[in-house]
């Protein structure tokens, strides 16, 4: 892997973060909405604040948060805050730092998303490869329309169907949450079992949708690979079927799948946000939904920034790992 490539790739990461932070800063300020004003009027409507002096309070808060300074200075301060990991305070959660709120939710999302995406990727790729394999039963082709349908449905809609079928009609799994209500989480079998049971339906929604996409993709790749000369050669050499399938077919056909993973990662993460909402799963996505409902602007911005940056970093890592998977790739400038 050349230094040049690493440099260029890192530059993209910097550009992504720059754009995300800049958009995050300017969009709310261009919209002309004032979160402090909105929150105070809301409080006034509930009878908490003296309405007559509300403008004085707004001025006071704006000075406190630095909102009375010129825009370019606010922008620089925003950067300085982000560098220090300070994303502001949540308006609704009574001044808890945004970073604390997010960190509390993060493990749930990472656990759910990582497991589900990896499962979908592995199962989908294997299934797709088998669909294209010449020795597979003919009846297998009947699965292609099924895969198409699955890949066409948004994750969260699959989630709603799963809830209806497996949590309401037949009550196999809980319909929402991450563990049994009122359970004190500890390193016990009871906790682990409860977490597992609650994770089954949301991850199934992501896995089912993913299998459709990965399966179709892999099928296409595998069909191309099957036409290659080295496949025929392996066959004539009399290699065993399993070895041809795994080492010659799958290995080569799977490589573009990793590139595709990089391309759809952003899409998967967005989809998972809505899955969490449907399942009231206590992850970052559900927190985002609650922040939207309660107009908690700082929290919304913090979560968006986190998601954008983690997707960008994930892509960078994947791009760096790719030459290890495919020795043909050297990333040198031609």
């Amino acid at each position, binding site marked *: 892997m050349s230094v040049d490539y690493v440099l260029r790739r890192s530059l*993209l990461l910097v550009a992504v973060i720059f754009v995300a932070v800049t958009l995050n800063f300017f*969009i709310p300020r261009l919209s002309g909405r004032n979160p402090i004003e909105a929150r105070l009027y809301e409080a006034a409507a509930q009878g908490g604040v003296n309405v007559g002096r509300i403008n004085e309070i707004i001025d006071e808060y704006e000075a406190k948060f630095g909102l009375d300074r010129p825009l370019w200075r606010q922008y620089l301060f925003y950067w300085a805050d982000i560098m220090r990991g300070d994303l502001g305070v949540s308006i609704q959660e009574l001044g808890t730092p945004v970073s604390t709120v997010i960190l509390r939710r993060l493990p749930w999302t990472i656990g759910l998303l990582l497991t589900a995406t990896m499962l979908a990727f592995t199962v989908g790729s294997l299934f797709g490869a088998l669909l294209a394999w010449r020795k597979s039963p003919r009846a297998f082709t009947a699965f292609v329309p099924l895969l198409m349908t699955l890949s*066409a449905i*948004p994750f969260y809609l699959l989630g*709603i169907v799963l809830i209806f079928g497996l949590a309401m009609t037949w009550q196999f799994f809980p319909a929402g949450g991450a563990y049994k209500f009122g359970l004190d989480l500890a390193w016990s079998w009871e906790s682990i079992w409860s977490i597992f049971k609650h994770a089954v339906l949301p991850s199934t929604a992501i896995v089912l949708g993913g299998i459709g996409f990965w399966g179709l993709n892999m099928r296409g790749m595998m069909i191309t690979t099957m036409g290659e000369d080295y496949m025929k050669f392996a066959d004539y050499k009399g290699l065993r079927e399993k070895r041809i399938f795994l080492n010659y077919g799958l290995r080569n056909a799977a490589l573009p799948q990793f590139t595709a993973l990089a391309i759809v990662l952003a899409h998967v993460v*967005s989809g998972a946000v809505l899955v969490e909402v449907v399942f009231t799963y206590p992850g970052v996505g559900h927190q985002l939904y609650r922040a939207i409902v309660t107009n908690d602007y700082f929290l919304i911005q913090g979560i968006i920034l986190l998601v954008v940056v983690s997707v960008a970093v994930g892509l960078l890592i994947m791009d760096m790992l790719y030459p290890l998977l495919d020795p043909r790739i050297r990333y040198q400038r031609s």
Partner: protein
Amino acid sequence: MALKVVRRALSAQSWASAWHFVRTNKMLVTGLGIVFVLAVSGHVASIFVDAERADVGAGAPARPPSWLPAAKNHPGFALGTDQQGRDVFADLLLGTPATIRIGLIAGLLGVLAGTLLGFTGGYFGGLWDTFVTLATDVFMTIPALMILIVIVSMVQVLSTEALGLIIASLAWPAPARMIRSQVLTMRERAYVQIARLNGVRDFKIIVMEMVPNLLPFLAAGLVGATAAAVLASIGLSALGLGPQNEPSLGLTIYWSLFYGALIRGMWWWWGPPMLIIVLLFIGLFLAAAGLDQIANPRLRKSA
């Protein structure tokens, strides 16, 4: 003259070739057919169904579907009513075209902007191309839905068209990347080279030689961008961020989740919009796959 054209259009030969097109592009025709029927059915039905039935309080709340007349001169609620008394059937008839309209607005504008960027970048190269490539890479990495959530949660979106415009602002990267790569290969093709050697001006080369060859890619890009825009609009509306005063598929999902339709067993509230969404996505998916086959004939073998 005009008569001649009509007669030729009606001749057996053109019918045969049209039929041949349908037979060889089953996926495309089926897909476009599904989307077209969904888009048009609402408009056709609005002649027969009173739009006011999709308003709050049009009927008794939370009634299961029934074909019995609800009152005198009232045909009844074929798909029941929601928690606020909207007729679910009428709601869907108005909401489906609205959702497709958002997708088309955003898809068209996105492809237009993406084509302009990708084309100029790929054709002229240089610093501008570097900029276009970087911008495309950056916005392909950023999950569009996230930025849309920031925009839409700050700006009050009041109409279907406004939501379409906002989604369009982030719908350009994928078409831009596709068109740019096509233009890069096309620029080196013999027919473009010959035109250039003959001293044909850039503008004429672009319009006469390149755009016609890009058409299948533009169509594929349009369908892809429309599907992405529909997905984004339904996602945003399902989060309660879309326009709340006009029916749309996502808004129906939002209200049904909001009022716990799942837990209360009100399947007629969330089921039908979901079926329509699934159908819509399958239609768009088939159309995209069909157009891909036309653009890259090599795919035909594998399908």
